[in-house]
């Protein structure tokens, strides 16, 4: 049922490849970091519009190149293009992130996440007694780059894909900032 079932396997394989092949050799001095930003998300369904949202996370470097994170995402309100109905989608996530320092100014990162998504449906015509909230488990992968401004601060840009949000996938692009401490 989920669109992109085959794609999900391909994407997971790509993410795991990035994380496990040792391409993130850059050392990181700080052990904690936190970040956040804004993003534009689009459900992979023709009939829904894209939406603006935001995300925030806090992470801990378990190795020089690998961090674990807890985060929250507000994907925004996805509206049906032809009607009044909207779906508000949020998620909390646990992630593993690999970092690769390309040079002094630029680094790349890849992130695999397990998330618990929550949908609050705003459907005026929903019959009484119908369920208007759903939640469940999904997973996501993203790639990004960061521009370092000093040792503790970088500006980030990410492209991510979230799978199985109640049978629908969501693609996201975002920009943000990250601070290490």
């Amino acid at each position, binding site marked *: 049922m989920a669109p992109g079932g085959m794609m999900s396997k391909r994407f997971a394989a790509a993410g795991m490849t990035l994380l496990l092949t040792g391409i993130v050799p850059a050392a990181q001095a700080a052990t904690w970091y936190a970040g956040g930003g804004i993003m534009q998300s689009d459900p*992979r*369904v023709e009939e829904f519009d894209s939406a603006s949202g935001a995300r925030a996370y806090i992470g801990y470097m378990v190795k020089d190149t690998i961090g674990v994170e807890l985060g929250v995402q507000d994907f925004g309100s996805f509206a049906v293009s032809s009607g009044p109905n909207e779906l508000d989608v949020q998620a909390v996530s646990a992630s593993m992130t690999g970092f690769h320092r390309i040079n002094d100014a630029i680094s790349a990162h890849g992130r695999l996440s397990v998330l618990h998504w929550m949908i609050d449906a705003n459907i005026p015509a929903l019959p009484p007694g119908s369920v208007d909230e759903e939640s469940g488990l999904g997973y996501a992968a993203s790639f990004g780059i960061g521009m370092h401004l000093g040792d503790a601060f970088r500006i980030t840009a990410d492209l991510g894909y979230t799978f199985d949000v109640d049978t629908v996938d969501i693609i996201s692009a975002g920009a943000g900032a990250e601070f290490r401490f």
Partner: protein
Amino acid sequence: MKKNNSALRTLAVAVSAAFLLSACDEVSLKEQYAGDDCAGAFTPTDPGTVVLPPDSPDTTTPVVDATTLSAAISFLQAVRVSGAIPTPGAEAAPAITINPSSIRITDNSQVEFDVVPDSIVAGHYIGAVFFQFDGVGEHFISVIGEADLAAVLAAENAAAAEAEAAAAASPADAQLAAMAASLTAQAAATAAVLAAGGVRVTLIGPDPDASVDALIQGASGDAFAAPATVQAFWVPTGTQPDFTAATWAGSTDPALWSPPAALATEAVAVGSGSFQATLTWDQPVDVDLHLTEPDGTHVYYGSRTSDSGAQLDVDDTDGFGPENIFYPADVVPPSGLFQVDVVYYAGSVETGYTVTINACNSSRTFRGILTTANPGVQVPVLDFNFGPACTLDNVLTGALDEPSVWEQALLCTESIATAREN
């Protein structure tokens, strides 16, 4: 090692790029689930427009009294015999109870009643039920196979299990829950009939294939009483006499004949045509028949007609029915999903119900039990797609899948929701 890393990096980038490119194609929920509605009854795409054959003239004798009703009526697995029921007198087999004690017969309808004995004659089963309209010079012998009711029970159990699975998949859907409860109770009632050594008799209304509007003459709702007498005959297990013969083994043995039981039969004139749904029930309570058309238009006692031609011509509020919704023979119903529901409106006891639906050149009868637990809840009877080469297959229970919240957001329209609320 460095060379290997470089190769893996290239591979990772290539796989990732391929993924991102493939992710550019969005799916369309509408194309996947065309015809869906708020309740999650997924239906095929629009089946097109149906063209009815021209109406044929009424060549059937009008049904105006018990004699003409007897001539027009039929029974499943039955023999029609001249004269009165050939009982020997002083019948000594267990007395029988007929459930329901009062039935309504309409054009194109199908009515079932259970014959339950007070006790079981050892080594025997009820091999036939004899039925005669009082004062009419012919009777019917409804021959009962030993396995008939067991087969009915097996089918009812299967339907109940299917409905329970559907209800479990949509725990918030009160309609599905009510349907599952109804079918489960019906299967239990049938099992009780079977355990008591009882049988079920199916009585079919006048000329089910007729294209006339009213075989039972009169304005819609006009009725006449046709009281009947019913007797059961017990035969040894493993045998089945030839009831068409003048006599058969045990035919003159009073110990094998139940005493006569009265059945209050009534003939009611209702409309029929290209579509007809008729509801009858067992108890003096108020049950209602509802029809939802493909565009969400709701036909019921509060809105008796639709722009497309459907009519509720008979409404009953004090017991037994019938309630009848039909499209005249010269009206083409719209193509698409039709939903037939029943509602327990008011009363203090549970009741069995029978809904006979004639459409798509076929007829199906649905039975269930409505309890007082869910007054006002629409219990689904049949959701089917009308159109060319249509069938009375239930698309609700046959292909139920709980809609995701994305599908609900896309497909729940104001008209459908309003119709369901009403």
